[in-house]
């Protein structure tokens, strides 16, 4: 695992040096390069958003906190606490006193205003300032919504700030569908649940009367594929998130099917079907229900995942004698092996940016989440534990969430996330034990 470090300290020093030359200030914009890793988080200040009417007083404070938590949760930013602030922001439109924010070493300043109107209408405005160059970064934005969706509005503000400073796509305004677990190891109860990416707003989608496994979002986040034992046998279901209605997919002759995933256009699914003890990969047109066999080997072929352009599928197979990763055309055909390191490789997932494949690796009794290029090069292991498995990508392809299970009779699963740089490993807050996360695309 490589921890490369290049940081703003270089840029910041340059900015400081050229401060008297206002025209050059733009040569050193506020910027974090995530791919290069970060040695020190960027200090920012986010004074409580101005409540533009009394109805907005509480919500403006809560909303400001969520913005701060989103940014700090990335590990790339550090908040300068409000009690250290010198300046007070009492009006969204007043000019910013840069000297007061420089004095506390805030490199970024986020100001905002919140108003609550009739019928729970919520308006949130924000501006982002590059304190040391003394100018606004991008223009102010306004979001309109309702008070019930206030957390999403906070995520949208934080997403805009994150994107402007890192140059990366946003990801805070997203959800995660996962398996909520209760009960002891030999009588685990599992049900599908959905939550915001940060663990808020949990909603249960199924009861725990049947085992449910490995939910996967559709590319628009409106549907979820998953495996359930409702019939006593593993079968694939598709669930509509809004109505929570579900239907079984008729996957053909075998009685067992699992490991489903949508194609990028949402029209096709790929999955595994077991027939006569042999597991192969199939695809199905979700409208017509017509299925096509993509692999035909006596070995185990499972865990298929599409490339973002829909042209290829990465999957795992033990045709070489142990679990390894392969890529084949989306229509089937010759597969190319891409994993060659020591150990076993499974559950490959193509990055939404197309550049990397995340996987689970088993080696010397330990489990790892790792990434490699699509040609198998530059393998990097990001985690190590008794049992890590099942990576899922954030919408911007910069963070990976996965299942970590602890060892022993009291062992339990929880969700973790880690940057693709290997930094910022942390547990994701859930109401109880949790496994098999699937990260949604960015919400509209």
């Amino acid at each position: 695992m490589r921890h490369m470090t290049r940081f703003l300290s270089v840029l910041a020093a340059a900015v400081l040096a050229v401060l008297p030359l206002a025209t050059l200030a733009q040569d050193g914009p506020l910027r974090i390069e995530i791919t290069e890793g970060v040695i020190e988080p960027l200090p920012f200040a986010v004074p409580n958003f101005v409540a533009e009417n009394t109805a907005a007083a509480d919500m403006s404070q809560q909303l400001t906190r969520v913005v701060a938590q989103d940014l700090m949760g990335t590990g790339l930013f550090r908040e300068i606490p409000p009690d250290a602030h010198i300046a007070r922001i009492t009006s969204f439109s007043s000019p910013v006193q840069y000297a007061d924010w420089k004095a506390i070493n805030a490199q970024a300043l986020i100001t905002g205003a919140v108003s609550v109107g009739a019928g729970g209408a919520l308006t949130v405005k924000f501006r982002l300032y590059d304190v040391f160059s003394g100018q606004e970064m991008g223009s102010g934005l306004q979001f309109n919504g309702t008070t019930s969706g206030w957390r999403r509005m906070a995520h949208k503000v934080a997403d805009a700030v994150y994107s402007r400073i890192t140059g990366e796509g946003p990801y805070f305004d997203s959800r995660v569908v996962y398996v909520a677990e209760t009960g002891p190891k030999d009588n685990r109860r599992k049900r599908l649940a959905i939550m915001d990416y940060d663990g808020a707003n949990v909603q249960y989608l199924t009861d725990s009367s049947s085992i449910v496994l490995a939910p996967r979002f559709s590319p628009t986040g409106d549907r979820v594929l998953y495996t359930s034992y409702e019939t006593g046998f593993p079968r694939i279901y598709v669930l509509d998130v809004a109505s929570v209605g579900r239907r079984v997919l008729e996957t053909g002759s075998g009685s067992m099917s699992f490991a489903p995933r949508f194609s990028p256009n949402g029209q096709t699914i790929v999955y595994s079907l077991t027939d006569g003890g042999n597991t192969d990969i199939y695809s199905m047109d979700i409208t017509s229900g017509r299925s096509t066999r993509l692999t035909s080997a006596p070995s185990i072929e499972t865990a298929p995942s599409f490339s973002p352009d829909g042209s290829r599928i990465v999957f795992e197979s033990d045709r070489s004698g142990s679990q390894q990763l392969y890529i084949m055309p989306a229509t089937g055909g010759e597969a190319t092996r891409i994993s060659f390191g020591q150990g076993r490789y499974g559950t490959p997932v193509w990055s939404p940016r197309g550049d990397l494949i995340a996987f689970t690796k088993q080696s010397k009794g330990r489990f790892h989440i790792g990434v490699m290029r699509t040609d198998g090069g530059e393998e990097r292991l990001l985690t190590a534990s008794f049992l890590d498995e099942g990576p899922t990508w954030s919408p911007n392809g910069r963070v990976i969430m996965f299942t970590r299970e602890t060892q022993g009779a009291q062992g339990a699963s929880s969700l973790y996330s880690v940057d693709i740089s290997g930094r910022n490993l942390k547990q994701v807050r859930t109401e109880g034990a949790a496994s098999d996360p699937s990260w949604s695309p960015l919400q509209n």
Partner: protein
Amino acid sequence: MKHLTRAALIVSALALAACSQNERFGENGMMGQNNGAQAGIQPGTANDPASPLYFQSSVGDRVLFAVDQSTLSDEARMVLNGQAQWLGTNTDYNAVIEGHADEQGTREYNLALGARRANAVREYLITQGVAAGRLQTVTFGKERPIEICSDEACYSKNRRAVTVLKSGLSG
């Protein structure tokens, strides 16, 4: 002390197995064990050679596998010979063969591995004369361990295929 512990383990394992079965198949379940008992076989008589309890405890309802393998050991074949014989005599029963894996593997792979194991048992029972139509398979991967420690002592018992009887009368 040792004996006590072992006895306690066996009792609790049986209790657990019973538990998970009831729960798995529920009240309207496909499993005929309880229904079968009510339909004529005296309940609680493991000595009755025609009872599912006898099948579980005396014939042996499960076989174990080596790590990442689905080949049947000589010991497993012995057990399955007994199962085939029992099924040949007790034609009121069909069976669902459940394949399981230990926790040392990824979820999807273990599902496929459990299916391989269940199928190995099914194929063998067929060669021993059980009609193919009486035998279904299902995989539970690593979802239903019977032993919960994270050591080989438990893993070796979890890498199993269990022949679960169901009343042929209903299906």
